[in-house]
């Protein structure tokens, strides 16, 4: 299994600013994932972050808006840039660890943009 610490747990931000979300894992993992989730809705994959390579973004998400860093095998950050109220959502970090392709999730960051 894997234990994931995600910070901050919530934040309220002003339009036009940026927020960086941190994801720390208690073990080395190859693949880390960033998701967005509207309350009561399903998860939408933003990007996959592998250590040592550029993140792979899903359709509808671009690096300029959601830059991701993956400096080592236990840590990643997601930045939400130039925020607008439409970016208000829950952002979740996830890792693939252990056998059977199980993904483990952080507790999420609830972002509100005013």
């Amino acid at each position, binding site marked *: 299994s894997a234990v994931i610490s995600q910070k901050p747990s919530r934040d309220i931000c002003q339009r036009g600013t940026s927020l960086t979300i941190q994801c720390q894992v208690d073990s080395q993992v190859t693949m880390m*994932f960033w998701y967005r989730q509207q309350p*009561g809705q*399903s*998860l939408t994959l933003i990007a996959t972050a592998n250590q040592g390579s550029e993140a792979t973004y899903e359709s509808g998400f671009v690096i300029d808006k959601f830059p991701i860093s993956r400096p080592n095998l236990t840590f990643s950050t997601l930045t939400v840039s130039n925020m607008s109220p439409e970016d208000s959502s*829950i952002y979740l970090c*996830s890792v693939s660890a252990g056998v*059977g392709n*199980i993904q483990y*999730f952080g507790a999420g960051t609830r972002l509100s943009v005013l």
Partner: protein
Amino acid sequence: AQTVTQSQPEMSVQEAETVTLSCTYDTSESNYYLFWYKQPPSRQMILVIRQEAYKQQNATENRFSVNFQKAAKSFSLKISDSQLGDTAMYFCAFWTGANSKLTFGKGITLSVRP
């Protein structure tokens, strides 16, 4: 493309009763994994149960069991002796090596009544 369908948006069950949550999926892959995740109001996504497609035996984890019908591409979750702590949103998810990503259903909100 892989798709996961959860057609029931919400269900309610009396405490101590049994409830079954439905999930169907579509894929052309022969080897894949299926998952049920639970997301309580605290937002933490928790793995409930996992099923490998090549295993005919249905997975079981304490009060949670699945009915995996590969030919019908059906993967339902049965919760026995429902408890108040089972109140959560439940997501069915699907993983293949073809894209190494989890595909989630829309989720179902389960309420356990005292």
